[in-house]
């Protein structure tokens, strides 16, 4: 299939547009069926694309036949296809959950959801830095609307901060782009990586400012330390499926750091080699530390999960700062695991909060949960995975990350940080679990039961964790190969330009 690489962008886009038209517009059930069918098709396409990228090498889709470096390209290599599949899987879980009733809270839930998927998939697939900006905007404007979906004071309050911060981020992104285009004269990522080597010293200083501005923007999306303050409030106030979908948004920022600051400003970049590292190191470790403190200080399960997202971002940013092939491979494994599990935790938190009545998901004594066995089981699976206890995927992921740091000088920082953070998360989650499930009053529990779709959505996300362990060999082999592809410049740069094959 020649056009396979663009389908993960086109399919959700057209689904979203169709959902706004008459046969679907006012019929929620039709919208649900159509959206679910579409997401199933997207899962199939993402899997096909991944298989193609694995067997036939990187798929480059040249839009309109304008050859790079001048035209717009989509690059479906091992990393981007893996992330597209991850995003689609997360969306499938979140959408299943939303179909049980969250989408009734306001209009246009499904179209907005699809537009956001378009943006995320596009950001993963694009091989052109200006389109990265465009897809960022697509996913952001959908996320603004999804965040306030359903209304309410808390959501509006969180959205004001989120929107203003991201608008400033977008302006800075454009400044960075302008500087890089002004000095390098190209916007194709692979071509930029070539041009950056031959910059003279005076231009290199200007380009450095551009590169670091981009790091600032990606740091804002990825919740890097001083730029993460928007995250807990935003994620905790969004409705559950939206928060679950947002779990992948920080990963878009991290993926962009991998793409831009490993490829363009990597070790080969002459004057601009590794410009991000002096900033990334302390900030990444700080992010991990502050996320851990945040988990400890959280008064509700949703806030705690939002802080767990920050922890996973911190861990991933540490691997980005390591800049080795092994670290990238570990990062990819950990990214699959942490995205899906934090997504599932947001969904579980919502169910718990609904079944506890007025106490919601606050850690206080309240009436018993209506379905303690089901939710308790889901909670303990998610908790074991996110803490990093064997036998689930968190353990493997954290071991891989720590092994990647083994032979570096920074090991004295990384190992204690990750281990202490895991221990503190263990304590915090145990406390949370005991309070939510066991410290109950005698008041009769509510009648509210979880909808089968909601259970299915959570199960879909949680089942990946044991699968990641059972098929660990194949997955780590794939991630290792993907990381090799990213770090091997003949594959990730030269092969994408004419005359480089």
């Amino acid at each position, binding site marked *: 299939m020649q056009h396979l690489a663009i389908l993960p962008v086109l399919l959700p886009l057209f689904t979203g547009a169709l959902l706004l038209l008459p046969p679907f517009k006012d019929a929620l059930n039709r919208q649900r069926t159509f959206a679910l069918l579409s997401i199933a098709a997207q899962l199939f396409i993402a899997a096909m694309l991944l298989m193609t990228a694995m067997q036939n090498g990187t798929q480059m889709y040249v839009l309109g036949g304008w050859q790079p470096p001048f035209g717009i390209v989509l690059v479906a290599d091992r990393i981007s296809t893996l992330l597209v599949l991850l995003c689609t899987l997360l969306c499938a879980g979140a959408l299943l959950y939303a179909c049980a009733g969250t989408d009734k809270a306001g209009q246009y839930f499904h179209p907005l959801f699809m537009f956001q998927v378009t943006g995320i998939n596009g950001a993963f697939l694009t091989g052109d830095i*200006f389109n990265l900006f*465009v897809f960022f*905007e697509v996913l952001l*404007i959908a996320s*603004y*609307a999804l965040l*306030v979906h359903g*209304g*309410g*004071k808390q959501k*509006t*309050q969180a*959205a*004001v*901060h989120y*929107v*203003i911060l991201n*608008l*400033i981020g*977008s*302006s800075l992104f*454009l*400044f960075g*782009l*302008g*500087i890089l*285009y*002004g000095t390098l004269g190209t*916007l194709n990522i692979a071509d930029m990586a070539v041009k950056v080597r031959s910059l003279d010293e005076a231009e290199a200083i200007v380009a450095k400012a551009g590169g670091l501005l981009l790091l600032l923007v990606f740091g804002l999306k990825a919740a890097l330390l001083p730029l993460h303050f928007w995250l807990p409030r935003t994620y905790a106030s969004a409705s559950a499926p939206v928060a679950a979908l947002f779990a992948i948004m920080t990963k878009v920022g991290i993926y962009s750091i991998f793409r831009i600051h490993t490829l363009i400003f990597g070790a080969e970049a002459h004057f601009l080699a590794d410009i991000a590292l002096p900033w990334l190191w302390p900030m990444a470790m700080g992010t991990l530390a502050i996320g851990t403190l945040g988990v400890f200080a959280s008064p509700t399960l949703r806030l705690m999960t939002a802080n767990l997202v920050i922890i996973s971002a911190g861990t991933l940013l540490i691997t980005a700062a390591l800049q080795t092939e092994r670290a990238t491979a570990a990062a990819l494994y950990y990214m699959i695991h942490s995205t899906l599990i934090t997504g599932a935790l947001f969904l579980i938190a919502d169910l718990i909060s609904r079944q506890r009545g007025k106490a919601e998901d606050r850690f206080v004594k309240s009436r018993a949960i209506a379905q303690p066995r089901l939710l308790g089981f889901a909670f303990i699976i998610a908790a074991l995975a996110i803490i990093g206890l064997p036998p689930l995927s968190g353990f493997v992921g954290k071991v891989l990350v720590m092994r990647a740091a083994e032979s570096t000088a920074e090991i004295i920082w990384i190992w204690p940080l990750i281990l202490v953070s895991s221990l503190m998360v263990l304590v915090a989650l145990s406390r949370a679990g005991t309070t939510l499930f066991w410290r109950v009053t005698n008041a009769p529990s509510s009648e509210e039961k979880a909808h089968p779709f909601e259970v299915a959505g959570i199960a879909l996300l949680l089942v990946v964790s044991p699968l990641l362990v059972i098929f660990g060999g194949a997955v780590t082999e794939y991630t290792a190969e993907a990381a090799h592809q990213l770090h091997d410049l003949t594959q990730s740069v030269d092969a994408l330009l004419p005359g480089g094959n």
Partner: protein
Amino acid sequence: MEGIYAFCVGLLTACGIFLALRGRTFPVVVGLTLLSYGVNLFLFASGRLKLNSAAVLGQSEQYSDPLPQALVLTAIVIGFAMTAFVVILAMRARADLGNDHVDGRLPEVPETPFQRRSGSQ
């Protein structure tokens, strides 16, 4: 020309950032708008400033770079949509939260003796 241009971009950006750091939503929205004007001009200059050089084939001796113009156009459209959204959101926040502060609540100002006197009446 370059000097004036750079000065204008700098002034717009500086004003934009100053206003974006204010506490009420209206100046913040104006600040974001100024910032996006600044960035649009900046993007336009990334293809270098030239006189008498069209971006169309056969229209002039020298050509100017057409790409920044396309980029600016995209950036303007996106910026426009975003501004519209943030204006609506600001109005919604004013209605939902009862004030126009970006934090959703007015900061506590220490009471002055005058206010205390007028408050007790």
